[in-house]
């Protein structure tokens, strides 16, 4: 992989000019591939295709690129675009049966969410052999003829989580920047910094620290992490002498402590969609359990903050008249 490839990969992750990174669906010939060479199926997402291409370097093989609308293997399989119909159609369209003499297509394991191997065989005559989860394991898979246990498992290690930070940041930044700027414009520098801190906690610290944050539920983990930002902002608000009384500052501090943690918690809840292990039922349960309390906390914090400002304004008005 060259530096240019890596730049393309980052842009592809960010969805920048997404459609230009699509690989054209069809049959690709690597090396001196002939009628006996293995056939590997892939998505037409640039990162998927490059991972496979890289793993097959030096091998004589065919790559059958499916039209997954530029989406990666697992997500496309979940949505059915990397599915039985498309695989069967692509085998027919490319005339694969005339190109190779064998009748086996090696498909990435994670496409099994969309590809029913027995259906493909019945409809196309091709046997689907599910390869390893990760393309990098293909050389070992080919040497051994089968995938070892560890090649069949998805992981979600630090590196897997770190590459998602720019993706999460891209989604969250417009909202975060807007909220933070609005708070600053409303004369809330501490609140603005708190919003920024709670958001960074949500889309940088949360993915990195995920396995070590206590608790099972992502929202609870996020509330805990966000509390650090909330309490930090509260302490800063209390300590900062802005000419108001201590009780008044305490109310403001409480508003930070209430309003900020839900920001991190919401970003944490959203991160469930990026993991390799959360179930839709589990996410639904978390939504039912946490979204209302989270909205309640944020709303209460916001109201408290507004109330403090109104009281301060009324007082200021009265003081001015005296």
């Amino acid at each position, binding site marked *: 992989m060259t530096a240019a490839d890596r730049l393309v990969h980052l842009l592809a992750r960010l969805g920048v000019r997404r459609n230009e990174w699509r690989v054209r669906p069809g049959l690709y010939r690597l090396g001196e591939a002939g009628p006996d060479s293995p056939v590997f199926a892939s998505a037409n997402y640039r990162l998927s295709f490059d991972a496979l291409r890289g793993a097959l370097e030096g091998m004589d093989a065919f790559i059958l690129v499916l039209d997954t609308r530029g989406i990666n293997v697992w997500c496309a399989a979940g949505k059915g675009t990397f599915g039985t119909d498309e695989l069967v159609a692509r085998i027919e369209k490319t005339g694969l049966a005339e190109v190779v003499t064998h009748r086996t297509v090696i498909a990435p394991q994670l496409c099994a969410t969309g590809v029913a191997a027995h259906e493909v065989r019945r409809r196309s005559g091709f046997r689907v052999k599910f390869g390893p989860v990760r393309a990098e394991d293909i050389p070992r898979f080919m040497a051994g003829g089968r995938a070892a246990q560890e090649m069949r498992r998805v992981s979600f290690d630090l590196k897997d989580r770190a590459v998602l930070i720019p993706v999460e940041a891209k989604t969250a930044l417009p909202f975060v920047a807007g909220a933070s700027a609005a708070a600053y414009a409303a004369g809330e520098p501490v609140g603005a910094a708190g919003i920024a801190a709670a958001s960074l906690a949500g889309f940088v610290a949360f993915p990195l620290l995920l396995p070590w944050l206590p608790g*099972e539920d992502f929202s609870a983990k996020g509330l805990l992490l966000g509390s650090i930002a909330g309490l930090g902002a509260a302490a800063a608000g209390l300590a900062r002498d802005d000419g108001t009384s201590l009780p008044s500052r305490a109310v403001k501090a409480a508003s930070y402590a209430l309003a900020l943690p839900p920001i991190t918690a919401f970003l944490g809840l959203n991160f469930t969609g990026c993991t390799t292990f959360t179930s839709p039922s589990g996410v639904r349960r978390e*939504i039912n359990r946490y979204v209302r309390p989270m909205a309640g906390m944020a709303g209460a914090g916001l109201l408290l903050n507004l109330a403090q400002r109104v009281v301060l304004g009324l007082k200021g008005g009265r003081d001015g008249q005296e």
Partner: protein
Amino acid sequence: MARSRTNTLEYNPALCNRCGMCGVVCPHGVFVPGDDAARLVDRDACMECGACSLNCEAGAIKVESDVGCASAMIMAALTRRGAPAPCCG
């Protein structure tokens, strides 16, 4: 690694034809091959991706699989539409 715990996985070993596909396709080792039928060894690890049930020709495995994307589900709940629309890459 955190587990999903809540899931809709149902398995009827009486229908199993021991093809072994569930053990092959599951990314979390929920099923392993057994002598008479595949064994469900780690139910809590199931993330409802649906690969096992789709590839179970015998129809022994049922699971309600869906796109597990929180933002899509929240949008679906807010707009009171049924199924979440696919959104991400």
